[in-house]
């Protein structure tokens, strides 16, 4: 009998049918992965099934927990279920942990809410749990606050809370999406180990088939509120039946990049940007130390590293949004960034270096229409004629493969991928020679990622613009970049041609990064899969 199953589940928010009749189930000791893009209804169906949606949402269908119908149970009864029977792990551990309580208290609360327990017993249980989720020196960590912990440690604390009462089912909703690749690998290992030790049923929600490939026993692929395909993991990965599953598989980089950027003639590219011995520290904490590299004309240089490695700081220094403490940066032989204070870039250089930011939701002014946003660069640099402006903006929109009707819309009326295209359009408006792209695809769905990456490669070919492509995702770097720089704790540990670095990594850190890429155990089965998305 299934530990947890939903049958013909429908979830509606106002006039929007988010989930339209979904059925799945999970048994003890098994892992069910639910995979789909944002808006596919994967989170809504689980939240709806466990009564965690606001009252304005209507949920219909059957939800069985150990054979007992739980849909429509009063809140009191559901609360008794959540915790002892069903544990939850969500995406962002920072916003789900109380900032003013110690982690020991928060884990202890998960126990004492449901059980009468003495203070001493509770303390011991919490220490055991911290140990269980792999936090070193639990005694010392007990009275730490969430802000003292790294992202991975916070997620371990969330998992400790979820397993505190040894529930029969754990629901993990994108638990590793906000984490670095090495941390992600460790968290996946942890979930798997805990599941094996306790025989827990696990429902794992993700947008990426690669992430769940090592952990899933069964996979449900969802799209637009419906189940597209539901099968054992082996079938999904080796013998996908639906086109959409193939498309997702095509976009997922199982075990590394599917293909490498075509090698270009290295002799032909002259150096464009030169970074010499740059160092930067914040409040006497060194972030970058003696960083030197060059970017050639029309070259895409990848910069990879984990959070805190200083990769975004390099981007900001090059973009002239910050100044180094030591060293200098020059573009086409002109020094423009040295230690000092005040504005960095003179007018003509300002045009030459543009930026695409990570979060397209934050980098576009929510109160201006796309047309106004895209006209800005031209207006600032002297175009006043209305008709001419409109032509230029239309051309930009065409360049980034959007239709003209987006011009009338506000950023909130666009999807994430469309927004990032608008941000890219703004960056190429002034025909820069270098674009700093700081994690430009990491906020996007995996299928959208592939499209935006191809767009960037095409823009490079068409406009001859160079990119500094900053990412924590090795798969994306491998597919797009000519060369790659690996950054660890503010220092460059490896530089080289992308394919060479990926296939013959020289530094131990690079090897560790590469080993953490999810999906190593399931190499892409068929080459023809790639044709679906790259054809």
């Amino acid at each position, binding site marked *: 009998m299934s530990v947890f199953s939903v049958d013909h589940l429908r*979830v509606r*928010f*106002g*006039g*929007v049918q*988010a989930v339209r009749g979904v059925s799945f189930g999970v048994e003890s000791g098994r892992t069910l992965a639910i995979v789909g*893009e*944002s*808006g596919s209804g994967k*989170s*809504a169906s689980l*939240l709806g099934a466990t009564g965690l*949606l*606001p009252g*304005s*949402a209507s949920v219909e269908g059957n939800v069985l927990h150990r054979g007992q119908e739980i849909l429509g149970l009063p809140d009191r009864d559901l609360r008794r279920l959540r915790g002892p029977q069903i544990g939850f792990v*969500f*995406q962002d551990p920072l916003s789900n942990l109380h900032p003013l309580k110690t982690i020991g208290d928060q884990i202890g609360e998960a126990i004492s809410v449901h059980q009468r327990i003495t203070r001493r017993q509770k303390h011991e249980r919490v220490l055991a749990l911290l140990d269980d989720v792999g936090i070193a020196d639990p005694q010392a960590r007990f009275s730490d606050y969430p802000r003292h912990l790294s992202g991975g440690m916070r997620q371990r604390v969330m998992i400790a809370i979820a397993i505190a009462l040894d529930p029969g089912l754990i629901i993990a909703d*994108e638990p590793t*999406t*906000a984490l670095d690749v090495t941390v992600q690998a460790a968290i996946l290992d942890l979930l798997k180990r805990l599941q094996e030790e306790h025989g827990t049923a696990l429902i794992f929600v993700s*947008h*990426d088939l690669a992430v769940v490939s090592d952990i899933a026993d069964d996979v449900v692929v969802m799209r637009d509120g419906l189940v597209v395909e539901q099968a054992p993991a082996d079938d999904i990965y080796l013998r996908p039946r639906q086109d959409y599953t193939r498309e997702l598989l095509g976009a997922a980089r199982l075990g590394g990049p599917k293909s490498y950027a075509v090698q270009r003639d290295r002799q032909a590219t002259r150096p464009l940007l030169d970074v010499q011995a740059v160092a930067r520290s914040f409040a006497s904490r060194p972030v970058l130390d003696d960083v030197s590299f060059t970017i050639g004309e029309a070259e895409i240089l990848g910069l990879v590293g984990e959070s805190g490695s200083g990769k975004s700081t390099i981007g900001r220094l090059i*973009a002239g*949004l910050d100044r180094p403490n030591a060293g200098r940066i020059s573009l086409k032989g002109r020094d423009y960034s040295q230690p000092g204070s005040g504005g960095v870039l003179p*007018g003509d250089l*300002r*045009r030459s270096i*543009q*930026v695409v*930011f*990570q*979060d397209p939701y*934050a*980098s*576009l*002014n*929510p*109160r*201006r229409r796309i047309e*106004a946003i895209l006209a*800005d*660069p031209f207006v*600032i*640099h002297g175009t006043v004629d209305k008709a001419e402006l409109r032509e230029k903006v239309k051309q930009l929109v065409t360049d980034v493969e959007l239709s003209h009707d987006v011009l009338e819309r*506000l950023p*909130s*009326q666009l999807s994430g991928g469309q927004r990032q295209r608008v*941000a890219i359009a*703004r*960056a190429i*408006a*002034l025909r820069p020679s270098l674009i700093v792209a700081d*994690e430009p695809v*990491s*906020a*996007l*769905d*995996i299928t959208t*990622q592939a499209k935006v990456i191809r767009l960037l490669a095409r823009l490079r070919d068409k406009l001859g613009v160079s990119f500094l492509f900053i990412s924590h995702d090795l798969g994306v770097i491998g597919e797009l970049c000519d060369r790659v720089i690996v950054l660890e704790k503010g220092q460059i540990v490896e530089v080289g041609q992308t394919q060479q670095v990926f296939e013959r990594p020289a530094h131990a850190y690079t090897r560790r990064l590469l080993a953490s890429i999810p999906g190593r155990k399931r190499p892409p089965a068929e080459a023809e899969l790639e044709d679906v998305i790259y054809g």
Partner: protein
Amino acid sequence: MADTIHSPVALIVPRASPSPGILLLKRLWRERAVRTGAVIVGIVLLAALSAPVVSHLLGHGPMEQFEGTALDEMGLPIGPTLEFPLGADGNGRDVLVRTLYGAQVSLLVGVPATTIAMIIGTAIGLVSGFFAGRTDRIISQAIDVALSFPFVVTALSLLALNRGGTGQPIVPPMVVVITIIALFSWAYFARLARGLVLELRTSPMVEASRTIGASWARIIWFDILPNILPTVFVYWAVQLPANIVAEATLSFLGVGIQAPMPSWGNMIAEAQRTSLYQEQPWFLAGPGLALFLTVVGFNTLSAGLRNVLDPNRRRA
């Protein structure tokens, strides 16, 4: 970081809607607090506008005394009658008409004072937040100093200075009251605006504008101002009732709006001073309830506006 939107709220955002203005109004109207507040504020506005009409219909001017009809043989004011719907005050004046005119005074003082404070405070806060560093430190200190003055004492001293040799005010007292209230509330707007700007000036949105070479003025005008104004407007509605009460306080203490001109503050003061409200409760209840209703109305409205406009408080 894909799929960061977890909450299904994103699904119910209407997609293809023509004008964001209409959409906003619809969202506002769906909020019960906004509806209730708007109705109460509407009633207050209507009352203020209808003052001359009611005055004409009843034939009672706001400062006219009807010693014959409105006072009984003992010289005490009469209670509510058909002719005097809320009764009369100690000088035989119509309480209803005076309360309605009082609404005019309250709004004529409160609205300009709050608006001036908003404009000055927002401008100063923008400068302070945007040009951080020394400018910011100096302005923040000035804000702290401004906030440390005790309101009533300072206001009393300033109003006392406004007396010429003959005891007549040099500047119209209404102007002085507006100035004083504005002086005492700009600092709150400045603090609010400073905080909002500090958050925005390092946002990707502003940095994106900087990288295309936008000037400071352009960034402030297009990126920062439109994004902080909703919050500032909400705060305007929060501050307005406080300022209406401030005017009533000053008038109550006898230094604001001068008798015989009616203001809720000086009406309440008069009722209290003469103890005539024990005979004629509406003498006190009329202006008192009107003040209460106005404050409740604006507070409800501002709470509702905040629910809708403040992105941090948006509910599922």
